[in-house]
Structure formats: structure tokens, C-alpha cells
């Protein structure tokens, strides 16, 4: 305590002297001039009043300017007024008068006492002044921090936070602050508009930190050209840097650098906490939104599935009963009407199924359940499903009996193949042939569906599997939603296969090839599990 008490004033005085040397500017001149003026006024008053009061200890009157100067303007003016008071007492009031020398030893003791009292009171007064100053500064800082917190509290994006830091630090420190965004998804610091406004030394340090992902040093720098000090701070969050700040301090001492650094770091800690809060809040908000959308979509799909398809099931079922009723079955006109109802309802059902499939693909993605399957089984199931719609075409299945087993989701592939075959039937003329040929190629089985239809233009070929794409040549002539092949493609890909379209050209037919994985089987089965 004692050491500190002695040390602190010493440091202050030495700093004051240093300042007096280095910063002998207008701000210092005026208080000193005023202090000297007060000393002069005191001298005049003493001169006038002296003979009347017979002042013996005139020197102590000069404590008044010392105290005024110390409380008002600090140490330097106080020293100046103290010295001036000392000189004035010696010169004007202590014999020999009008001589700086002092003859009477009692007066010398007087002056020594004056100097001691002046130093102590100056010291005390100055300390009071410092306290007031510090309190005022603290108040201002608290106010600034309060506003900063308020701004952080309402900040909703990292940009808000950066702006808040910028404003807060520049008002509290009075320094120029340059922010370089960094980190994932952020621009390189060199692209910042501020880049050219910082000196080379700072640019190098910022790049160094950026390149090493926040590992660089944060020590203050001094730019040799201007002699200004710069502070560089990293804004990091969970070990990843989100920004780098360069703060220009100007030509200041080490002490003020430390003080500013402390202030900057306090602000940054608070800002980073806010940034994290925003991040978390943002993530929670997004997750909630996503899950709500997901729930809504699932509910919608579920209800569409039920609400639309249940009546369709009733219509189709009733139609099938109606078709067998003796009165209808024996009347060709009536049974053809029933047939119209049935086929149109089936089409409607297919369209609804396509919409459901499409929404299933885009919402949750398709879950494939892979299992071994016989390729002809898949093709036959598709043909069986479509048999009514293929009545006007000649179907030529070329399915070899010795194809390897494929490992796919057979249900998805059958649905995809149905879409492809249905598409071939829709776009090729009645009476033409649709060929379904399966063959083994390396570790895959290729099922190629070829028609004798209008073929594909180059544009159609590239866009065939796009969602809602419909060839402009057929938009009027052929009904469709543009979903079928997109669904087919998605189902095949989900099952680990590929779908390709090829055409010899316009008017020369189209071939869609489904390529399915047929990994080799384990060899153990023949002896262990075969017919023993």
C-alpha cells in the first residue's frame, strides 16, 4: 500500500513532466497562463494589503493559486503557480525586497514550508480532480456500455453486432476502427473496402491471422511510417474466427495502449456472447420453422392421400361391381360407359399417386429398402399394372432367364419402370411396338424400354428428367403433368441405379435405359444351402 502510494504520485509527476515536454500545446498553455495571472492578482492584492496587515508569512497566500490550478487544470499549472508564488514571495515580500534573495532564515524556513505545503495540497487537490475526472469517465463509460448492451440486445444479425462494436469502440476510445470480416463464408480481408486505408504493417498482420485461422499474434503494432500504434483483435466464436478488428490508437504511450486494449476486450467479450446467442436463436428458429413445415407437409400428404383416394377406391370398387351386374354386363353400351368411368378414375388415381410421390421425393427424400430381386419379376409387375393402358400397343418383352439378381428396392423400380413404359405408350402411336429388353452388362442389369414414337430433340434429351418438364412439341397433343419421368429418375437413383435417355433423332423412337446394380452373390450357397 505504502509503496504504491509513493509510487503513484511519482509516476504521475514524471508522466506530467513527460507530457509537459512532449505535448506543450495550446491545451496546456492556457491554464498555465491563467495560473500565472492568478499569481499576479494575488501578488497585487498582497502588495496593496501588505502594509495594512503587516503580513509576515506572505508566501502562504500563494497556496490559493496552487490549489485552484491543481483542482482545475492538474499538476503542471499547479507546479508553475507554486514556483511563481515562491519567486514572487522572495522577490516582493521577503527582504531584501525586489531581490530574489532572502536574508532572514525564518523567511527561508517559511518558503521551504510553503513549498512542502504547496506540493502536498497540490497533490491532494490534483487527486481530487483526478477522482472527479475518473468518476465522470466511469459514468460515461457505463453509459456507453449500457447503450452498447442495449444495441446488442436488439441485434439480430452479425452485421448489427459488428456495427455496434464499431460505434461503441470509436466513441469510448476515440480511435479509428477497421473491421475485416473473416471466417467461413466471409470474404477475404483484402476485398474489404477498408483494406487500402490501413498501413502495410497492419495489412500483413491481418493477413497473417486470417491465413492461420486466428492463430496470429494480437500484440499492438507500431507503424513505422506514421509512428501510430495499432491494436489488432480477433473476434472468434467457438474456435472459428468471425472477424478481425484493427484499431488505430495514434501516437500514444504503452499505458494508454493497455487501457484501451482492456476496454476493447471487455466490449468484444460481450459482443461475442451476443453473437453466440443470435446464432443459437437463429438455429432454433430455423429448426422450428423447418419442423413445422415438415409436419404441415406430412399432414397434407396424409390427408390428400386419404381424402382423395378413399372416394376413388369407392368409385373404382363400385364400378367393378356394376360391370359384373347382369343388367350392365349384358348391355354393351352400358358396360362401355362403366369402362369409361373405370379408366378415367384409374387415370385420376395415377395422377394423385404421382403428386404424392413427387411430394414424397421433395420432402423427405425416398427411402429405398434394398433386397435381391429377379429383374423379369420387376418388368412383369410393371406390365401387369399397365396392362389395360397398353392394350393398343404391341408389347415385346425380351427378358433373358439367366440374368443376375439385382439388389434394389423392387417396389420403387417397378413404379419407375411403369412410368417409363406408360410414357412410351403415351407418346408412341397405337399399334406400334414397345420393346422391354433386359441384359446383363458388367455388374449391372440394363432394362431398356424402346418405342417407335417421335424420338427426342437434343433439348428434350437433356431436360427429359426435369421436374414438370414437358416437350413443347407434345404439350397440346398429349396429356400429362411432366412428373412421371422425374419421379422415375428419382426412384431409380434412390435405389442405386441410373436412368438414361437416348434417341436416334426426331421421329426415330426413344430408348430409356434403366441400369440396376447387380453385385456378385456370395459363393457359399451351393453346398451349404443347396439341395442336400
Amino acid at each position, binding site marked *: 500500500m505504502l509503496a504504491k502510494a509513493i509510487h503513484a504520485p511519482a509516476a504521475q509527476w514524471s508522466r506530467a513532466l513527460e507530457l509537459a515536454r512532449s505535448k506543450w500545446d495550446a491545451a496546456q498553455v492556457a491554464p498555465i497562463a491563467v495560473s500565472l495571472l492568478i499569481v499576479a492578482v494575488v501578488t497585487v492584492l498582497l502588495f496593496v494589503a501588505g502594509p495594512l496587515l503587516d503580513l509576515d508569512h506572505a508566501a502562504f497566500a500563494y497556496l490559493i493559486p496552487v490549489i485552484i490550478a491543481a483542482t482545475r487544470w492538474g499538476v503542471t499549472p499547479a507546479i508553475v503557480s507554486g514556483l511563481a508564488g515562491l519567486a514572487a514571495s522572495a522577490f516582493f515580500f521577503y527582504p531584501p525586497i525586489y531581490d530574489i534573495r532572502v536574508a532572514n532564515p525564518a523567511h527561508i524556513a517559511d518558503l521551504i514550508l510553503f513549498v512542502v505545503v504547496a506540493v502536498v495540497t497540490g497533490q491532494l487537490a490534483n487527486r481530487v480532480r483526478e477522482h472527479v475526472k475518473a468518476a465522470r469517465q466511469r459514468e460515461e463509460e457505463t453509459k456507453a456500455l449500457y447503450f452498447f448492451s442495449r444495441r446488442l440486445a436488439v441485434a439480430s444479425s452479425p452485421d448489427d453486432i459488428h456495427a455496434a462494436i464499431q460505434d461503441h469502440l470509436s466513441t469510448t476510445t476515440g480511435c479509428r476502427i477497421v473491421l475485416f470480416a473473416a471466417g467461413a463464408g466471409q470474404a477475404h480481408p483484402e476485398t474489404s473496402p477498408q483494406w487500402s486505408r490501413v498501413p502495410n504493417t497492419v495489412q500483413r498482420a491481418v493477413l497473417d491471422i486470417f491465413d492461420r485461422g486466428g492463430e496470429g499474434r494480437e500484440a499492438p503494432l507500431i507503424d513505422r511510417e506514421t509512428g501510430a500504434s495499432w491494436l489488432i483483435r480477433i473476434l472468434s466464436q467457438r474456435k472459428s474466427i468471425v472477424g478481425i478488428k484493427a484499431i488505430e490508437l495514434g501516437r500514444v504511450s504503452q499505458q494508454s495502449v493497455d487501457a484501451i486494449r482492456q476496454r476493447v476486450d471487455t466490449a468484444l467479450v460481450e459482443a461475442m456472447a451476443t453473437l453466440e446467442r443470435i446464432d443459437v436463436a437463429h438455429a432454433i428458429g430455423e429448426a422450428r420453422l423447418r419442423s413445422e413445415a415438415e409436419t404441415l407437409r406430412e399432414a397434407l400428404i396424409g390427408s390428400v*392421400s386419404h381424402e382423395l383416394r378413399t372416394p376413388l*377406391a369407392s368409385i373404382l370398387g363400385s364400378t367393378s361391381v356394376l360391370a359384373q351386374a347382369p343388367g350392365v354386363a349384358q348391355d354393351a353400351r352400358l358396360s362401355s360407359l362403366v369402362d369409361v368411368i373405370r379408366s378415367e378414375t384409374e387415370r385420376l388415381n395415377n395422377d394423385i399417386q404421382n403428386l404424392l410421390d413427387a411430394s414424397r421425393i421433395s420432402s423427405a427424400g425416398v427411402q429405398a429398402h434394398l433386397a435381391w430381386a429377379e429383374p423379369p419379376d*420387376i418388368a412383369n409387375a410393371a406390365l401387369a399394372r399397365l396392362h389395360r393402358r397398353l392394350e393398343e400397343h404391341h408389347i415385346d418383352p425380351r427378358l433373358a432367364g439367366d440374368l443376375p439378381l439385382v439388389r434394389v428396392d423392387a417396389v420403387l423400380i417397378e413404379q419407375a419402370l411403369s412410368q417409363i413404359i406408360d410414357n412410351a405408350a403415351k407418346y408412341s402411336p397405337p399399334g406400334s411396338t414397345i420393346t422391354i429388353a433386359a441384359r446383363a452388362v458388367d455388374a449391372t442389369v440394363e432394362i431398356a424400354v424402346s418405342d417407335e414414337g417421335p424420338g427426342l430433340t437434343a433439348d428434350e434429351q437433356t431436360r427429359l428428367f426435369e421436374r414438370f418438364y414437358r416437350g413443347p412439341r407434345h404439350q397440346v397433343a398429349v396429356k400429362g403433368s411432366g412428373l412421371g419421368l422425374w419421379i422415375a429418375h428419382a426412384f431409380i437413383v434412390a435405389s442405386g441405379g441410373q436412368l438414361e435417355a437416348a434417341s436416334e433423332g426426331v421421329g426415330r423412337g426413344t430408348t430409356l435405359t434403366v441400369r440396376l446394380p447387380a453385385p456378385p452373390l456370395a459363393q457359399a450357397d451351393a453346398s451349404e444351402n443347396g439341395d442336400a
Partner: protein
Amino acid sequence: MRSPALIVLVIDDEVQIRRFLRAGFELEAFTVQEAATGTEGIRAATLKPVDLVIVDLELPDMDGAEIVERLRSWSKVPIIVLSVRSSEEEKVRLLELGADDYVVKPFGMAELLARARAALRRQVPGQQGDPVVRAGPLTIDLAARTVSIDGRPIGLSPKEYRLLQVLAQHAGNVVTHLHLLREVWGNAHSDDAHYLRIFVRKLRQKIEKDPTQPRILTTELGVGYRLSVDGG
């Protein structure tokens, strides 16, 4: 059909579905009972014996699996499930729980009747005299353990015969992959579905005219196989 009329219990919450099922079954001389909920359906089946149960997979008070499970706990009555597309796992689960077959909505009456008849036929063995199952040109004599096509006997390996036997025991109805694997290979191999695919292929080469266009041993993708008694 034998007399008196067979009683079919329809458990479905959709009144329109019940209406057309009633019409369809009555045209085929069935007696129809209706239930709108699972609870009501189970009570109806308990109060008075029925010959066939048609149950919807989605009921407001109970899911299809629960109804099948509860009916199966005391009754061997044939059960046909009305299912929806894209629920192969659910179908397999219901079949494993003891449902005899399923039809996928929307379905035609003819399809449902074919499944129902197959399930009913299995329920009354010996009704037609000897335990012989016919599927198109194929004849399987389960007592003599012989198989013939158009009267000409064919030779099958023990496993091939066992496979055909299990299918014949459920003739006309679907049999799940898992069930076949368990019956033919034992529990140990129930995961190795490709054995089944290979043996089905071998069997088809012996019993089908065109093994790539099977008419007798048909596939239910993702579910199992069926011996199609009305195929040919």
C-alpha cells in the same frame, strides 16, 4: 358355394366402401355383416362365427395389425386386409401376424373375390376330396408328394418340392419371403433372401412354360410369392 350362405364381416370406416363390398359380395351369394370400427368388428366376430373377415388397414380406433392380432388369438377365420400402395412393410407385418392376403386400394371386386375364395378354400381342406392343388396345368398332390404338368410327372429336388408345397398350402394367397425362408431353410437363413430367389427361378424353369413370364408361381414385389390357382 356351400349352403347356407357364407358370412363375410366387412370392417371399414368408409360407408361407401362398405356399400360396394356389400353389393359385390351379395352378388356372389355371401351374407354381409358390416362394422365401422375395430371394436365393433371384433365384437361382431365374437358374437357370431363368421366365415371371412375383410378389414381396412386404417381404422379410426385401432390399426389393422391390432385387429388381425386379436382375431388370430382365438380364431382361424380367413382375413383379407384392404391396404394402400407403398406400404410393403406393413403388408408383410400383417401377413406375418396371420392375415391371409391383401388387396391394394383401389381394387376391383373380382380381385378381392379371387383372394377371398382362395383363403376360404384353404379353410375347408378335404372338402374337394383329396388334398390335390391345381394351378393351371400344374397339379400338386400333397398326400402322394407328386407334381405333374398336364398329367406328366416332373422331378423336383427336396427343397424345390418343399417350396412348392408351402405355396400350395396357401394356394391362391400370398406367402411372404420370410415365411418361405423359415419353412424351407429354417430360421437360420431368414436373412438370406437370395437363396429363395434362386430356388424360385429353378422351380419356374421346371413348371412354367416361359419362366420369364410366370403364370403359376407369381411374384408380389416386396412381399412374397403366390401360387396363382386361376393362372394358366
